[in-house]
């Protein structure tokens, strides 16, 4: 259907004179308008990537010019660094938890909020509110809530008679990752819910009406109409969630500082520790390269294989006028 629309109708073929003008693009103008953005992009995005890639081949403390070339030694060392390998494991855990728990809950909430519910607007606003807070504010808030001695979390478990459930949430190496995941979910579920809600509302009501007419129950309607049509939204939401998890820094840094005893460090936290605390700038650059490569690889593969259908109609591909 989409391709049909894009194929120019015979009547719309421009007259020859106009065709010629369209072929001769105004390159000087394009260059003029593009150059400021390109300059900034090169300066602030490309240069740091190239410099980090260069620095990652050196054993360098950041003072003066990098001198001690070590080749791939930094990367080889990463593989045997138990903190770094732990970072990868923890990132995978967070991704799995996000996709397995956070995304389904957001989806369910979006479906609920789409029902004719009293005070629906209020709920929508409430659920979205945490997303508006910065990660730092959220983390400071939850350090207080999870405080073992005067925190709200333990106070509540005691009030409802579950005193035994009270714990040192952030102070225990076994629970810290789950506490962290809880806080991340608290902050971001509203964002995903709003995405799904918007996606749900763009599904034409006729489809559900027709399904109801044909005798489909609510589950069947969800399974065979809502879910497939929400596909593009879900794929984007998963994409954002995974990339956000790979680059997670602020929340962890403020909430736990990577502790207790480095058990909640993420890739970015380890990079900061190495670069700014230990002055292993070359090594930290190697970590930053790994984060970059993981993100780029994931991004490209995901776009190539998962988002392909969603991107087909995108303006950036310029349809078949390429």
């Amino acid at each position: 259907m989409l391709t049909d629309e894009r194929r120019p109708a015979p009547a719309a073929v421009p007259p020859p004179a106009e065709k010629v003008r369209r072929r001769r693009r105004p390159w000087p103008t394009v260059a003029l308008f593009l150059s400021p953005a390109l300059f900034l992009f090169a300066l602030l995005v490309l240069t740091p990537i190239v410099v980090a890639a260069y620095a990652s081949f050196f054993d360098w403390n950041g003072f003066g010019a990098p001198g001690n070339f070590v080749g791939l030694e930094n990367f080889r060392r990463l593989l045997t660094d138990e903190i770094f390998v732990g970072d990868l494991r923890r990132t995978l855990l967070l991704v799995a938890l996000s996709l397995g728990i956070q995304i389904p809950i957001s989806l369910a909430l979006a479906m609920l909020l789409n029902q004719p519910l009293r005070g629906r607007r209020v709920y929508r606003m409430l659920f979205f509110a945490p997303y508006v807070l910065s990660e730092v504010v959220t983390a400071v808030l939850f350090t207080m809530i999870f405080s073992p001695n005067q925190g709200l979390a333990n106070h509540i478990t005691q009030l409802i008679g579950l005193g035994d459930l009270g714990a040192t949430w952030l102070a225990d190496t076994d629970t810290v990752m789950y506490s962290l995941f809880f806080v991340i979910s608290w902050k971001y579920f509203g964002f995903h819910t709003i995405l799904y809600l918007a996606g749900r509302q763009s599904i034409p009501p006729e489809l559900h009406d027709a399904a109801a007419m044909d005798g489909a129950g609510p589950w069947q309607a969800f399974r065979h109409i809502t879910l497939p049509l929400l596909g593009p939204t879900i794929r984007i939401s998963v994409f954002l969630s995974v990339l956000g998890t790979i680059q997670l820094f602020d929340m962890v840094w403020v909430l736990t500082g990577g502790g207790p005893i480095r058990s909640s460090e993420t890739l970015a936290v380890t990079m900061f520790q190495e670069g700014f605390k230990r002055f292993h700038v070359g090594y930290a650059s190697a970590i930053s390269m790994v984060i970059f490569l993981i993100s780029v690889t994931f991004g490209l593969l995901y776009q190539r294989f998962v988002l392909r259908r969603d991107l087909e109609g995108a303006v950036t591909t310029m349809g078949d006028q390429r």
Partner: protein
Amino acid sequence: MPSTRFSRRSFLELAGAGAMGAVLGGCSDDDGESSGSGKTIRWWHIANTDPMLSEWAAMATRFEAAHPGVKFKITPLENEAFKTKLTTNIQAGDPPDIFHTWGGGVLFQQAEAGMVKDLTADVGGWKDTLIPTALDAYSTDGKTYASPVDTGMVGFWYNKELFAKAGVNSPPATWADYLEAVRRLKAAGTTPIALAGKEKWPGHYYWAYLAMRVGGLEALQQAAVDKNFSTPDFVAAGTRLAELVALQPFQTGFLAAGYSTADGQAATVGNGKAAMELMGQWAPVVQRDNSAGKKGLGDKLGFFAFPAVDGGKGQGTDVFGGGGGFAVGKDAPPEAVEFLKYIAQPENARIEAKTAGVLPTVKAAEDAVTDPNLKLVGKALSASTGFQLYLDQAYAPAVGQQVNDSVAELLAGKATPEKVAEAISTAAKRG
């Protein structure tokens, strides 16, 4: 706020997240002013709260009045933000003209990179007005790289009332006595020790002091030179610390506790919820500021030195601690050094001692110290037989951080004394 190591509100380090990009990009955080020309002195200090915030500014204004053409550009920064911002500037080859320093390996690394001026001759000019150990933290190989301003030491700050209630009537003098005191406090239902496990640096004090008491000061210096911490002395120090950890003396959830937060180490002691903490000379101020009603313990607060270890090579009078000083950036105008001399004048040194409650390094200013607890610290310092700077400042940054990290594992009961020594040796060898 004295120029010490507290209020590590780590969220300010986030500035560093952005700064990482700047470092890697090789872009300096330039203020757009070339130092040296126009006699503008860029001064970075960490007294970001009053009284010293205003006092330093007033001192700079007086200096400007006496030296026409000199203009100060002061940047007061919070502790951790300062470290990150300074690192970025120094790596970009653009150090401020005057900046705060704790001395030690961090300063010497900056000196080695040619980023700070050699002040041996200049500070030598007023060296005799300073207390004897004042320059130790800022000197290496006979060269001095900073001018000291204040000093202090780490010791136990304890709640006299809670100690008495538990039947501990005199401060413990040996490690065995100390462990016994901890047992009694626990038996009396009191949390013996408050510790900020999240921040790690308060934990390293225990291990460092024990290593000093067991192996002596030379062992700490020799280990850094040999890059070997796996000696019997360091393992024994770890074993002594493990004895303490086995008693579970710390507050619930100490591994996630901050230092100067609402329920952190200082507040726990300041609110009377724990009997003691091992902390530097700034402890009373931070306890007061973070406790309920900003009262602190008042008269109930006492101070005792870290106990001696039976059979150890170190003296019970060797002290561990540090203070603050100012280093001068490589491109600074000569007036910057002149200004350091100016603030080392007794009448100026007295201002800080009096208003900020710190121990001055200028002998003549000692009469301005009025706080009884601080006087105790001063007395212990002047009777000291040796001095060791905080290990996370004394050693190269990577080694210092490893000490903090490994000792944190020991305190959490997740590493053996041998493993701690081994990990620090490995970090030292790597550099």
